[in-house]
């Protein structure tokens, strides 16, 4: 077994607010090897983006981030200076955001930005950087790549911009790539194209990839491992097959019942739902954060909830060992 590229242990992120401390991420663990894709799914506000930003060293200064371990390829990320983190970002680890314009500068051409992404980290000349830019634009499926180099971001459609951003993230062939909702703003056809591209490139470059999404279809098709988050915690973690075929946690199970699945749910029939809302993350929290919405909650859910393991990598956090109504 190869060493993990990324090891996250007991990661917490606190945000001081006027009303008290917001515990946005409350002790999460996961690890990732080269060539693996990990998907993080979960309710809006559950801490998916903050977790990604924490790994990249991009959290805002007012947030407090702690971890028992935050290792990337043998580097202790907790101990790196901002300058050292800048050197890692875009080189050995890279991020792709939902909105390409957060990474692309409207005032510079595509070519300049792609070349800079390489020259910032590698001692290469313009000609070599240019060749690499053309190579990567080709890899992300952009035709007539050379003529695109002199274009500005606003001259491209959303799908093309997202492709350019992927090319930029891959200029230095990173070991780890984190994509936060990279296709949410795109059309379904373009979403499928971009995801396929990401999966192919990830395999080709043997990268580790973290994909943050709320689309369960995307998760099922692309993930090796899945982390399900709710209110700042990992409530379930396992292989894609375990999560989709034998989900254990009531939130995961509820989510899977909420989506219409052609061929499985009948048109027009009532879909499952999870009534209620996410609790406030400000201040101290006892017991299971899902209990106000859980249909199998019991009194014991208000106290410490055990972590259960059913296999080497599969864990979930619930008082029930066997889920009521689950096929055993």
């Amino acid at each position: 077994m190869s060493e993990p590229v990324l090891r996250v242990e007991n990661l917490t992120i606190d945000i001081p607010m006027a009303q008290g401390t917001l515990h946005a991420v409350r002790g999460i663990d996961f690890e990732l090897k080269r060539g693996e894709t990990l998907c993080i799914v979960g309710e809006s506000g559950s801490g998916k983006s903050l977790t990604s930003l924490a790994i990249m060293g991009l959290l805002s200064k007012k947030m407090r981030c702690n971890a028992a371990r935050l290792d990337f390829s043998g580097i202790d990320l907790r101990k790196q200076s901002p300058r050292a983190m800048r050197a890692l970002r875009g080189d050995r680890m890279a991020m792709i955001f939902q909105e390409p314009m957060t990474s692309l500068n409207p005032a510079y051409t595509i070519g300049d930005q792609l070349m800079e992404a390489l020259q910032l980290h590698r001692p290469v000349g313009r000609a070599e950087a240019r060749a690499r830019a053309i190579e990567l634009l080709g890899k992300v499926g952009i035709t007539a790549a050379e003529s695109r180099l002199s274009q500005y971001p606003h001259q491209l459609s959303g799908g093309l911009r997202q492709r350019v951003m992927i090319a930029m993230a891959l200029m230095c062939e990173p070991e780890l790539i984190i994509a936060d909702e990279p296709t949410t703003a795109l059309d379904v056809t373009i979403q499928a194209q971009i995801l396929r591209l990401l999966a192919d490139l990830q395999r080709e470059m043997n990268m580790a990839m973290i994909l943050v999404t709320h689309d369960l279809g995307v998760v099922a098709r692309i993930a090796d491992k899945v982390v399900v988050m709710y209110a700042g915690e990992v409530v379930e973690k396992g292989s894609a097959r375990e999560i989709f075929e034998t989900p254990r946690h009531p939130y995961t199970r509820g989510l899977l019942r909420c989506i219409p699945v052609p061929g499985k749910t009948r048109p027009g029939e009532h879909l499952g739902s999870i009534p209620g809302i996410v609790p406030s993350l400000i201040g101290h929290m006892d017991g299971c954060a899902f209990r106000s919405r859980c249909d199998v909650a019991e009194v014991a859910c208000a106290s410490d909830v055990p972590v259960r393991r059913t296999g080497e990598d599969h864990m979930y956090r619930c008082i029930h060992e066997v889920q009521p109504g689950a096929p055993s």
Partner: protein
Amino acid sequence: MSTTTTTQAAAAQAVAPEAGATPVLELAAVTKTYRVKQGMFSAARPLHALGGVSLRIYRKDVLGLVGESGCGKSTLAKILLGLEAPTSGQVLIDGREVTARERTVLARRIQPIFQDPYSSLNPRKSIEDIIALPLVVHKIGDSASRAKSVARMLDLVGLPQRVLRGYPNQLSGGQRQRVAIARALVMNPEIVICDEPTSALDVSVQSQILNLLGDLREELGLTYLFISHNLAVVEHLATRVAVMYLGKIVEEAPAAELFAGPRHPYTKALLESVLTPDPNLSVPDTHLGATYPNPIDPPSGCHFHPRCASALEICKTTPPPHVRSAQGHVDCHLHAVPAH
């Protein structure tokens, strides 16, 4: 051709228009042209957001409208709502043309639910005022009867009466979308235009809103135009589906028929892109290239030809024929009926 076979599912859910029935809502050859500037100093050029759209919506139908960003879905919705005037063509209600002066008639009978429950509700107004506003604008009832209507709407959409005095920022996304639905229904509309009504919501909340929309249709006999990019949702809710590409409806058919046997290559690509949550499958190949058309300068012939894997030589030069079938149509050279 399979277009005349009605599958069981279609028979169960589609409200087949009786022969000679008048559509509640009809667009006849509607075009909408905007004038846009591409650069700071260039002259304005026409952008054909709708290039001649004809569409009929029958009572109690749920017409799903799909197609990629910028193809004209919202423009079509705005014309139906009377928020925009067509450049040419007609809008008909119950077979009667709606003239520019009768726009308020449209507004009473057709109500919208928009995508974003955050920006579509005025943050400074109480929930009660938000839901009552359409009644006030149309001068319907007195304050007592309005209060009664509002209370009834809250029950209908499953919100507790105590939210009345609250403000939008005190509600969750799902609750706000319920408020938007209540506001749309307080006018007793016959037709509701839903423009991406659940795409800003969490999966766990989306299903509640879809269930509610389905129930309300049953209870109140509503007709929906349902715009969404989520094809699984459209398949779940729609009785008919219209597929748009660059300002034109390229295929229309009963939902079950369209999902079982898409005919237009773009419809096929759309359906192939649906990612069902099956961990044994990977991301499919849509067979579409990375050439995205510019709506100001659309491709010649069939607008879809640069991306179409089945394109013929004729597709580059000649617009596709409009091929009717028993319950719909497809615009594509592949389906042209050979002339004898």
